[in-house]
């Protein structure tokens, strides 16, 4: 019964989404008050239906109802309870349902948030979100229904992909999708502004907290995925420029550009059409991410989810949503004019450069990800792009971007009086250089060319970020959450740069042949392979190695890497043993049984690699703090920010009363 109920709820959700889109978009267009009034009930109804649907699917997993095809394909009676729940999004159909559910959550939050905004505008935002939701529901029902029955029911299921049976990967998709879907909100605000034909500083203020929250979730999702790849796949790295990783990274880059461009639109009323374009771009890339992962056009780690037959549908979907938005943009954006100007070394121009560099970096990733596809489509020789392309091409725009962070923080809006801060900038830069050299040579006693550069830029960002907050704190002035969030996020960026620089410069990895009882030396560490014992998990058999890691003869930790054989899917998984000492991440993974009692053992020493993931969470925290600024909670500004565009405000205020 439950699957049928879920299926039915999904159909009702689609109809309600259609109503939400219809009333939300056309109501304001024709000035129909009652149409607009119907939007919020449609949102609520749709959400109830979507929750019912995902609840039914979850219940089918918990009860292990193998008469449901999707359950039979992704669960097994030996699967632990936690993973039965995570199995809901373990494959394509359920992932889509998760996406729809999260879009529902965002929409409900937005429907509360827009209560303070002009009614027409709010209806339009919800209308656009309804349209996106409708398209996803239609796609799910037409091509990827998770509630299909299996006739006759399977006696037992095929189990969840063992790669996904991991705590980090159980929560990675929900976080990542929360970010992806969050950009739908920025997209909807952009859509509403274009339908309105007006956009001003207040618009940017409304949009900012939503965008920043989505960006923060996406960042955490990416970091969790990277962490998972590090210890679960054991390839020895935190980033592989894999098409699916890139697919999640591109919207993040676009979102980062959007956050900064929104700041300019908010404070100065500039970059309006550019901000709109970035909002469309960020969401388009989120959709493209889904497309790349789900359509089977790329071969990747995640290709277990691929199905080429769905590709055409997704493409049609992209054409309507993105094509529609860009058509609207081509028609409406020319109407948006910015009156204000700015000087060359003002904050506006630094943020402009920030956007240019971020878009270049985005283009680099996009080009590398799409090149094999484009070459294939044009029947050119097959092209493969890997780290040798990505690392240098990505670093090229990133190094100047990092230098700009420090300059941008010290600059002021509108006026280019950077010379006032010349001394501070030079002093902080000098201190950063000294610190960087001290760290490179003092701690690690060696360096690659870019090592001190990376450290210098990171320290410079930290120092310049701290100057203003410390100054305000000493003068007992309040620090707004917006400024605090920005500072935290920039420090997070610096932590990321330090982490990446250290890992890329000082990693020490090798494979050694070891038999139980033998010892090996690597870097500062002695590794003692104590023994190898059989182990058994709920749905797998394993061999577990015991390794004692010591430094200067003192035992530090015991690591237990495993090699697991999952019963149902017959696949072998490596579980690395991981520990940390003095910031260095020590990873031991069991390789092959070399015979004669020997095993190939991979030992990796990666200094500060943990910082890479911690940094992502610091940045997300910064985003969270900034998004909670009181400034965003008031509908209209009390005082107009400097000389900006005021006409639009008046027009929107009129919209509210009319």
């Amino acid at each position, binding site marked *: 019964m439950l699957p049928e109920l879920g299926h039915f709820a999904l159909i009702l959700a689609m109809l309600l989404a259609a109503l939400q889109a219809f009333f939300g978009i056309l109501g304001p267009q024709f000035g129909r008050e009652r149409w607009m009034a119907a939007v919020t009930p449609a949102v609520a109804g749709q959400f109830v239906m979507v929750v019912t649907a995902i609840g039914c699917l979850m219940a089918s997993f918990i009860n292990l109802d193998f008469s449901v095809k999707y359950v039979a394909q992704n669960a097994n009676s030996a699967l632990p309870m936690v993973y039965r729940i995570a199995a809901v999004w373990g494959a394509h159909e359920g992932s889509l349902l998760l996406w729809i559910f999260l879009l529902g959550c965002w929409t409900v939050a937005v429907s509360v948030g827009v209560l303070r905004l002009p009614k027409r505008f709010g209806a339009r935002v919800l209308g656009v979100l309804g349209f996106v939701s409708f398209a996803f529901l239609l796609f799910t029902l037409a091509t990827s229904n998770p509630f299909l029955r299996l006739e006759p029911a399977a006696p037992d299921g095929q189990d969840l992909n063992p790669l996904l049976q991991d705590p980090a990967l159980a929560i990675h998709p929900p976080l990542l999708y929360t970010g992806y879907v969050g950009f739908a909100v920025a997209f909807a605000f952009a859509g509403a502004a274009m339908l309105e034909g007006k956009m001003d500083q207040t618009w940017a203020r409304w949009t900012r907290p939503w965008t920043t929250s989505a960006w923060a979730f996406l960042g955490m999702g990416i970091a969790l995925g990277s962490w998972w790849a590090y210890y679960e796949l054991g*390839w020895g790295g935190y980033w592989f420029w894999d098409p699916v990783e890139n697919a999640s990274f591109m919207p993040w880059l676009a979102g980062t550009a959007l956050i900064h461009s929104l700041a300019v639109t908010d404070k100065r009323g500039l970059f309006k059409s550019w901000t709109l374009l970035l909002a469309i771009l960020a969401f388009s890339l989120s959709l493209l991410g889904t497309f790349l992962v789900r359509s089977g056009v790329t071969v990747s780690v995640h290709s277990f989810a691929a199905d080429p037959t769905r590709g055409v549908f997704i493409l049609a979907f*992209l054409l309507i949503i993105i094509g529609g938005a860009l058509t609207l943009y081509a028609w409406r954006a020319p109407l948006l004019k910015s009156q204000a100007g700015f000087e060359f070394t003002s904050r506006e121009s630094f943020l402009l450069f920030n956007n240019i560099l971020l878009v270049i970096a985005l283009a680099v990733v996009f080009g590398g990800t799409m090149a094999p596809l484009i070459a294939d489509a044009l029947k050119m020789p097959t092209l493969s792009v890997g780290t040798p392309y990505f690392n240098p091409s990505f670093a090229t725009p990133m190094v100047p971007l990092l230098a700009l962070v420090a300059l941008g923080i010290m600059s002021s809006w509108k006026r280019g009086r950077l010379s006032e801060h010349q001394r501070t900038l030079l002093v902080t830069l000098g201190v950063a250089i000294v610190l960087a050299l001290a760290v490179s040579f003092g701690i690690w006693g060696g360096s690659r060319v870019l090592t001190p550069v990376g450290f210098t830029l990171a320290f410079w960002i930290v120092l310049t970020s701290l100057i203003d907050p410390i100054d305000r704190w000493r003068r007992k002035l309040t620090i707004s959450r917006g400024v605090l969030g920005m500072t935290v996020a920039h420090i997070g960026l610096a932590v990321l740069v330090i982490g990446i620089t250290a890992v890329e410069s000082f990693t020490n990895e090798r494979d050694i042949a070891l038999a139980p009882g033998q010892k090996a030396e690597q870097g500062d560490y002695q590794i003692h392979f104590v023994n190898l014992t059989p182990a058994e998990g709920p749905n797998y058999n394993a061999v577990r190695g015991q390794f004692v890691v010591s430094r200067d003869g003192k035992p530090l930790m015991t690591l237990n890497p495993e090699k697991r054989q999952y019963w149902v899917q017959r696949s072998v998984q490596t579980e690395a043993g991981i520990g940390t000492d003095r910031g260095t991440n020590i990873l031991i993974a069991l390789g092959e049984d070399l015979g004669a009692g020997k095993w190939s053992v991979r030992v990796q020493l990666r200094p500060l690699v943990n910082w890479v993931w911690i940094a992502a969470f610091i940045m997300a925290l910064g985003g969270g703090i900034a998004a909670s600024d009181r400034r965003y909670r008031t509908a209209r500004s009390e005082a107009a920010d400097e000389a900006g565009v005021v006409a639009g405000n008046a027009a929107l205020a009129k919209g509210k009363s009319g």
Partner: protein
Amino acid sequence: MMKTRFIVPLIVFVALAGVLFIAVKRAPDKHFIASVLIGKPAPEFKLPSLTNPGSNVTSTALQGKPYVLNVWGTWCPMCRVEHQALMQIQQLEQVPLIGLNWRDDDALALDWLAQLGNPYEQVAIDKQGRLAIDLGVYGAPETFLIDAKGIIVHKHVGPLDMEIWKRDFEPKINAAPAAGPT
């Protein structure tokens, strides 16, 4: 002039959508490309050997017994995933594995084999990707089963695992003529 600027994103998007459309249309082909080549002779090749510098790996020398040609590169993350399975397959000693190191750096490739183990009997270097094009390789890893007469019997796109090996390759190896003396 002012207005055309705002149409550019739309034009770029439509062009890109066109490319994606072709890619999607061709995506299913990838899995059936095999049908074009299966039953046909494998292209002849003579390529430098990675592991024995100075010597060559040639299709003529390989003829006479079935072999598996595995296309890989150190730049390909899925090849690393596949590597474990290749090591296991090699231990079964059912058929020799011939590596085709595709568009790669020799030093990196040798390093890879030293670190992860070498499952291959021979490794040919295809720096320009000529043979890969003749074989219709879409992306690494790809694996071909070639019988004693040099005919392509099976092709697999994407990483191999033991399950795929047992299901798709073993029956065909056992069925292949002239499997060698046992």
